[in-house]
């Protein structure tokens, strides 16, 4: 608590500064308080000698009536937020059945989790969590039409890869094959806790984020280069004016010649962020051209272009960073869920505030939670593969 004496001191000092002198009684009071808080002497002396005032922002255009209205609205919204319905008697049998089912499901779930042990949970000794979760890694599953799936996480994978494809430093490289007898469709499935970079047969580099899928032909056709994306990927398109590079994601169709861009299609409304060059984007109803530094998103089935406030949003994840700038808690949690393979269990309604911050993606979940606790004011508790979200209780 700031002592009331300090407040009185500040009041008297400001009166002295403003009026140039004080009535005797108040002057004596000020002297007494200055003896008590000698630090204030310098500050007062400096201010008496120097008439500058530090006005932080234009206070006069602040409309106090308006601010008061905002406060009342905020207060009322907060009061009505918890809205529980009381159950009447008729619900009781239903609850019993529900409880029984829940119990059954719990058994099934526990049994299943015994069957499938996970190896990315580790004890936490630093942050006081029940356990910690290792970050995701490079990896993906490659599905070639008519063949067995190939798990690229396996160390000795090279033998099982078709000719012309190799895995080098965790990156998948396609080389242009001369023979055109077979050109099967490849699907790269990147599960949660994984990410992979690849170079397509035309030299285009792609980074595919967790929980995403990229479908393409091992060799592109002579007149087009088309890939299909679910989830998020960043593309650095190799220049080829004769064959436009086309990405299909949800309702979007993105056409590039030689550019770099990020497409995020986790949500039904996909979003494109262009970092280099120029793009043509086709939506359901309109098409739009954008230059580097701009993005496109779908609003009410119309494509709308917008300037990107910060390019790092498009590239940070592929460079190994979480980037929370201007993201809501829900978006942040979605990203964590994809990278750490965890389920989010939120006991509170998440506010729409946007945060700024970031952290490397190669740290454990407990470390991220520790940062987020400071950043967002939510308490994040790890319980095996679950992340429980609560409001942080203020320590008084």
């Amino acid at each position, binding site marked *: 608590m700031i002592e009331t004496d300090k407040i009185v001191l*500040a009041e008297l000092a400001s009166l002295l500064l403003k009026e140039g002198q004080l009535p005797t009684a108040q002057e004596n009071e000020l002297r007494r308080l200055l003896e008590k808080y000698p630090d204030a002497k310098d500050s007062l002396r400096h201010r008496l000698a120097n008439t500058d005032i530090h006005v932080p922002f234009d206070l006069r255009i602040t409309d106090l009536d308006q601010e008061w209205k905002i406060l009342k609205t905020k207060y009322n919204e907060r009061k009505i937020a918890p809205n529980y319905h009381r159950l009447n008697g008729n619900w009781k049998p239903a609850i019993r059945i529900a409880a029984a089912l829940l119990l059954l499901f719990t058994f099934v779930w526990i049994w299943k989790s015994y069957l499938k042990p996970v190896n990315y949970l580790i004890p936490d000794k630093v942050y006081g969590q029940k356990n910690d979760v290792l970050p995701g890694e490079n990896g993906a599953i490659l599905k070639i039409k008519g063949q067995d799936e190939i798990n690229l996480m396996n160390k000795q994978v090279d033998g099982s890869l078709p000719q012309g494809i190799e895995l080098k430093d965790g990156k998948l490289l396609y080389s242009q094959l001369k023979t055109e007898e077979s050109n099967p469709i490849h699907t790269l499935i990147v599960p949660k806790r994984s990410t992979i970079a690849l170079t397509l047969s035309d030299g285009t580099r792609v980074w595919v984020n967790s929980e995403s899928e990229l479908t393409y032909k091992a060799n592109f056709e002579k007149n087009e280069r088309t890939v299909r994306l679910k989830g998020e990927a960043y593309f650095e398109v190799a220049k080829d004016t004769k064959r436009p590079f086309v990405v299909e994601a949800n309702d979007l169709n993105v056409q590039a010649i030689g550019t770099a861009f990020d497409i995020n299609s986790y949500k039904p409304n996909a979003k494109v962020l262009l970092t280099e060059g120029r793009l043509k984007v086709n939506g359901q109803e309109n098409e739009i051209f954008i230059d580097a530094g701009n993005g496109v998103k779908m609003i009410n089935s119309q494509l709308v272009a917008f300037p990107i406030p910060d390019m790092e949003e498009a590239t940070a994840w592929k460079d190994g960073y979480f980037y929370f700038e201007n993201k809501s808690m829900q978006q942040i949690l979605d990203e964590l869920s994809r990278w750490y393979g965890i389920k989010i269990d939120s006991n509170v309604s998440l506010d729409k505030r946007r945060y700024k911050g970031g952290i490397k993606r190669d740290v454990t979940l407990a470390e991220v939670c520790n940062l987020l606790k400071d950043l967002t004011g939510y308490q994040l508790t790890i319980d095996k593969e679950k992340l429980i979200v609560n409001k942080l209780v203020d320590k008084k």
Partner: protein
Amino acid sequence: MLSIEYYFKTYFLQLCTFAFPWVNSEEIAKDIVQDAFIVLMDKPELLEKGERVIKSFLYTSVKNMAMNAKRRDRVFDKIRDAITIPESDDRNILDDLINAELIGALHRELDQLPEGCQRICRLIYLDGMKYDEVAQELDVSVNTVKTQRMRAINLLKTKFLNLVLNFLLF
């Protein structure tokens, strides 16, 4: 007993002034002060304890919230590691309090000026208009502008006229 509304309208601006050096953002400063008042609204019993206690409560809440906000920012800085971390959390609270009180007092004083004086002063000092421009804008004579300006200066009780003029000119 004074109402919350009274405290809000009297102290909102100086509390924002107080919060600002920590957070360096007008929006965040305002949010913090709003939040401090929400906490106060939940403690109506405090209202009976008088103005000083309430001021102390408000300043303290704002200080704590502002420091938390700053701490969050510093966590962010650390991660971005290129940005230098500010030297210390310990602002000179007394100096900040004096500054806040002074700005609050000046502001309330300016608000007390008669409407006509205020408008003319604003146009001159805030919008940087010349006397004849102000006269044209308000459809009065240049002499009226001059006398209203003098009247405003006389009405302001402060001996430190520079202070007020600086304040206005900011």
